[in-house]
């Protein structure tokens, strides 16, 4: 290679490296990131991640350096290669006994170091693993039951007083600084609950109850997504965790415990009639009305949620109307049938649904 070619190659390599680094460093933060912990659980795991990361990076680097050195050495010695190499299987009597002995020592040393590294990592992993599960405390924890279904999340806030239990869907509000216990189960196939910023995942296996806990250190919106393949709309089975100050949280709880708002305008009243006479009533509940089916998400306070269709659409009037009319175009295969409503009915229904704060 000419001098110019070399310089060009060098420049290209440097630039590629810089590009790679910039790609690598972007987006460690985010609403759905392992490396941007917002609670003690995820925080511990991110610490052990960095331990593993640096150890692995060092090992990889060393192995590659030694390999390249070996290749370089071997290339230089290539000239001296005979047609048929000398071989001897007896120990120490190889072509270059000295070299052989040195290599034996190095390989033995490297193996011992490997064992030590693995031991350290295992112990670190074990102790973090214990701390993740053992510090779970049941008292003054908010207890929430999360049920996975194809393809949305039912969320039930438990309370000692049965009258205070309430349902919502695809959105979990939690108070900052207070542990939250999640009781997980599934009614159909296996799903997996995962909010990377807060806690590692747990599978929802039908027939097996699972419990995890987490705590949010700071207010924020954190996205979670089903992590176990669960069929056609596995991709669109997300939810949001809303961590907020205890006051805000209490206000939210108080509001969610109430029955649905009564329709206040003519349009809303007509919308309620549409809801109750259309197929909507076959699957959904609106507390305080005759609608009480539990096949689909509870819509008592649907207008207070951030998203529609399990984290698929922002909760706006336009998206809502598209979703009601033709959900199969948005989430093909989901359980909601299309609804052919006449435009006036549709507008009235949207008015009503949007009033359900």
């Amino acid at each position, binding site marked *: 290679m000419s001098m110019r070619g070399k310089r060009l190659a060098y420049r290209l390599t440097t630039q590629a490296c810089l590009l790679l680094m910039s790609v690598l460093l972007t987006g460690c933060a985010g609403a759905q990131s392992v490396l941007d912990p917002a609670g003690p659980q995820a925080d511990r795991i991110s610490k052990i991640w960095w331990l593993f990361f640096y150890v692995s990076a060092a090992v990889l680097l060393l192995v590659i350096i030694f390999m390249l050195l070996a290749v370089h050495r071997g290339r230089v010695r290539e000239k001296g290669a005979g047609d048929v190499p000398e*071989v001897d299987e007896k120990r120490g009597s190889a072509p270059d006994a000295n070299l052989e002995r040195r290599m034996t020592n190095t390989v033995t040393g490297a193996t011992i170091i490997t064992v030590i590294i693995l031991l350290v990592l295992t112990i670190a992993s074990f102790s973090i*693993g214990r701390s993740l599960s053992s510090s779970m405390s049941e008292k003054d924890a908010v207890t929430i039951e999360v049920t996975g279904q194809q393809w949305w999340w039912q969320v039930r806030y438990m309370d000692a007083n049965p009258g205070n239990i309430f349902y919502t869907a695809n959105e979990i509000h939690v108070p900052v600084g207070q542990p939250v216990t999640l009781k997980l189960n599934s009614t159909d196939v296996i799903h997996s609950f995962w909010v*990377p910023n807060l806690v590692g995942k747990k599978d929802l296996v039908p027939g*097996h109850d699972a419990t995890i806990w987490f705590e949010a250190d700071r207010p924020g919106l954190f996205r979670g997504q089903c992590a176990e393949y669960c069929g056609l709309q596995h991709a669109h089975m997300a939810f949001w965790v809303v961590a907020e100050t205890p006051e805000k949280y209490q206000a939210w709880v108080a509001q969610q415990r109430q029955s649905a708002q009564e329709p206040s305008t003519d349009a809303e009243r007509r919308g309620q009639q549409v809801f109750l006479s259309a197929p909507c009533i076959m699957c959904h509940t609106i507390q305080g009305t005759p609608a009480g089916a539990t096949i689909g998400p509870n819509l008592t306070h649907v207008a207070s949620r951030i998203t529609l269709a399990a984290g698929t659409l922002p909760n706006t009037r336009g998206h809502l109307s598209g979703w009601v009319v033709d959900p199969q175009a948005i989430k*093909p295969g989901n359980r909601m049938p299309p609804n052919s409503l006449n435009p006036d009915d549709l507008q009235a229904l949207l008015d009503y649904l949007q009033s359900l704060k």
Partner: protein
Amino acid sequence: MAETEGTMQEKIDRSAVDNDASAVALMEERERAELERTWASPKGFFGWFTNTNHKDIAMRYIVTAFVFFLLAGIEAVLMRIQLARPENRFLGPDLYNQIFTMHGTTMMFLFAVPMMEGIGLYLVPLMIGTRNVAFPRMNAFGYYVYLIGGLLIYTAFLLNVGPDAGWFSYVPLSGPAYSPGKRVDIWGQMITFTEIAALVGAVEIITTVFKQRVPGMSLNRIPLFVWAQVVTAFMVIFAMPSVMLASQMLPADRLINTHFFNPAEGGDALLYQHLFWFFGHPEVYIIFIPALGFVSSIIVTFARRQIFGYTALVLSLIATGFIGFGLWVHHMFATPLPQLGQSFFTGASMMIAIPSGVQIFCWIATLWGGKLSLKTPLLFVLGFVAVFVLGGLTGVMVASVPLDLQVHDTYFVVAHLHYVLIGGAVFPLFGAFYYWFPKWTGRLLSERAGRWNFWLLFIGFNLTFFPMHQLGLKGMTRRIYTYLPETGWGNLNLAASIGAAIIGVSVIIFLINVAWARRRGLVAGDNPWRADTLEWGTASPPPSYNFADPPIVAGRYALWTMTAETPVLKGLSTKRREVLVTRVMDAEPDHLYELPGPSIWPFLLALATGETFIVGIFTPWGFPIGAVLSLLALFGWFWSKPKSEGGTAADSRQEQSLLSLGEAQGLPLKKGA
């Protein structure tokens, strides 16, 4: 040992020594012609179905598996197109689910395992100096069963009956209630077919290696390639029955109302996961250990020195084989299992890094002490080390319970498994193609195209899969057909898709290289790489009988330790398909055994097996009918015993010399059945 071989040689060659040179040459030529007549593969369309030559069968395995590799590659490209942008509408969820399931299933069951076994079935008999595998008809049967399985699932895929529950087919999603139609049943039966083929291949390899090695090749002289194949074969025998259970219990649940996995009736969905991963994890090593064999072969040849730490390498292979069975729960850390139990599997998963590490160190040491000729096969091996070590290190990460809870079922794991499987198996495999192609075809692949092939694969591979680590950490879960733009996963996914295109180009270059080399490639000669193992001691491509006179082995590096005086094995019949059966430990001659020749029955039995499982999907009658048909086919198979022609004078003389060889070693040598 050397002295014994000396006497052996004298006895065997006594007749030849007496004659003068030209007469010897003439005799040898006649002998070869006769061997060719005896061992020739049957010709013609009908002959294709009766062939039992291990090289032909193995080449069919290799070619078929490679076709499946290409199909699965096309599926991968389709997935990458779909995922290149957020909310892409290129594939819908139904088609995407089928495609990713087909990709995983094809790569694991129809490409990786058969490919590794195919290469083993081709090379093992050559490397140990015998003329065919131990049960040639069963070998053919295995191939047909595999082919039927592959055709079944791809026909089904084209008819929109492609499985869509993932390559792992977890219940209840794959169960009767959530996967209507016949898609998952087809998957289950295809698994059964490939399992049968894999088991058959494993039995072949173990028996052949343990009983048919050429005299002198004691266990401590077996090439590492062969050791790798033996360890793999044992793993197949222990792992496959587990998935066979799963792949039969699942269709039973779906077809005949059993309740193995129904929690409401006392079944358990997790039982399926245990059964599947008890196979599924060793499967990774079943794919990867043969590749270690390729690596060892290539390194020895191109470093031009003996391997560093033969014993350590063999023990590492065996240790990997054992520990590989203790890891399966690390695929299930996120399920509701007790913490303490999980810690055990963390320990085991960490432990398996030790033998892998030892192997890497030994190879680097070999390179260190070698005189390298940096040809394409070695290039692929170097790529393998870099990629595989990274994959192994992320493997250590996913072995840790807390870390796994974050990265499990995300693109981090997708990256990890591709680093391990492409790095650990496909890189060595391409190296193996470049290395053994001249043996298989007699011509060399182009070095220049090889370098392009390697560098494009290496760059494309890293561009595709490295960003996936980060995607996983940013929360991208596996097996999603699309994602929202707000997630911010778009750019990294685009990079991955571009990388996939580069991999595609690299594979196309390889295909062109093969097509070109088949016609125009440099003629290789017997041993173009000046390698050490026995397969290079015969013509390229090898004759149907492999060796006219298999050389008797005096060391670990058979051809490097061979001299003009090295004795050869004489005395095998040229009129019958006869092989020498030797003892397990030291390969001392034991008896002569006549292998069966071409037969149509293995093919017919495979058809009967195919009928059983395919018709069984639609009606239980498939099983009784299949049982009767199989029984008939087996009758035919065992009825047609090898025809022993009346021994000629020459034959009995050769037998005598072999018998006397046995007597000289104090062995009770008898003619086999």
